[in-house]
């Protein structure tokens, strides 16, 4: 019986095992307590979640790390999202996931642009403007520009999209598994508004 499997059955099994999980689904949810939105991509092996952060939350975080009011406010009003990436494959022999934020693209008002990276932020601050402890905290609190997620790994950090509170944009998320590039669009992401 087993060895009489037809070609069509075989193709169906292949689809269920490999192709179907690779189709990335995008979901949006709203936290009932905070009323903040989040967007999640899940292709069966990789999960990427973006969650709104209130400008006040971000402002308070960076003020507490030693940033000046002015710079903390500039960061806070640049559409900061909490970002969580996870290698969610159930099989431990599954490929590791590579994420490179330089390959992500935003679409806002018909114009495509890259994500603002932590290295860009850092280069904007002069030596006397930001104390070392604050610079260090920013570096480690933001999502890594490049990260590799082995099976079971997950990473966390803030990502900035350089838009004012309330703006909407689309985001092309790009990642690769075993060198094979994958991508998915998240449509209609909204930067959290001031409350």
């Amino acid at each position, binding site marked *: 019986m087993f060895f009489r*499997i037809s*070609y069509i059955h075989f193709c169906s099994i292949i689809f269920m095992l490999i192709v179907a999980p690779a189709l990335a689904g995008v979901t949006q949810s709203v936290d009932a307590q905070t009323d903040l939105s989040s967007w999640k991509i899940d292709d069966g092996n990789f999960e990427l979640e973006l969650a709104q952060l209130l400008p006040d939350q971000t402002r308070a975080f960076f003020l507490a790390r030693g940033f000046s009011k002015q710079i903390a406010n500039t960061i806070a009003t640049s559409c900061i999202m909490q970002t969580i990436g996870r290698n969610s494959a*159930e099989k*431990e022999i599954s490929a590791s996931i590579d994420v490179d934020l330089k390959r992500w693209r935003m679409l806002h008002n018909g114009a495509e642009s890259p994500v603002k990276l932590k290295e860009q932020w850092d280069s904007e601050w002069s030596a006397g403007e930001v104390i*070392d402890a604050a610079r260090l905290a920013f570096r480690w609190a933001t999502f890594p520009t490049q990260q590799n997620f082995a099976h*079971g*790994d997950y990473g*966390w950090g803030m990502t900035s999209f350089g838009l004012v509170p309330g703006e909407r944009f689309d985001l092309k998320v790009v990642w690769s598994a075993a060198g094979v590039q994958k991508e998915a669009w998240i449509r209609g992401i909204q930067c959290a508004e001031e409350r």
Partner: protein
Amino acid sequence: MMRQVTIQSMLLLLLSWSASAFSGQLLTPYKGVQPAPDFELVDVDGEKHRLSDYRGKPLIINFWATWCPPCREEMPSMNRAWHKVKDDVFMLAINVGEDEDTIFIFSADYPIDFPVLLDQSGDVIKQWPVKGLPTTFVLDREGNIRYTAVGAREWDDDALLEIVKGL
């Protein structure tokens, strides 16, 4: 005929692949055998610790910060793990960029009974292959990096600790 045999072979391969689906991997084997970068740091009580002093037992070394949610999530399980294996395994937490007072306040809610070292300048973490917090390394008795874990783990998991104790 040939196509049928190929299909059957591929199907068998796929099914055996699926069989390992739920075995679960707790730690990621480090590529190759690499000595961990040495350092000297002070702990929250001002005592000096040199990595090279921690030889002869496996060592779990965790880079973290108090403001990092997954770091907070895993710290209780790290502390429980320490009490389970402290006779067989060394454990160090390296805080990145914060001071003793901050950690003192943190430890009121999250007790840490193993040494917490201070990398206030961030010079040590730069020498290690860390991209984000928390990242944890497991070293063997000779001081080589053998496993990594990016993101939180349940460190008091018995299967995980058996892997560590076997190094």
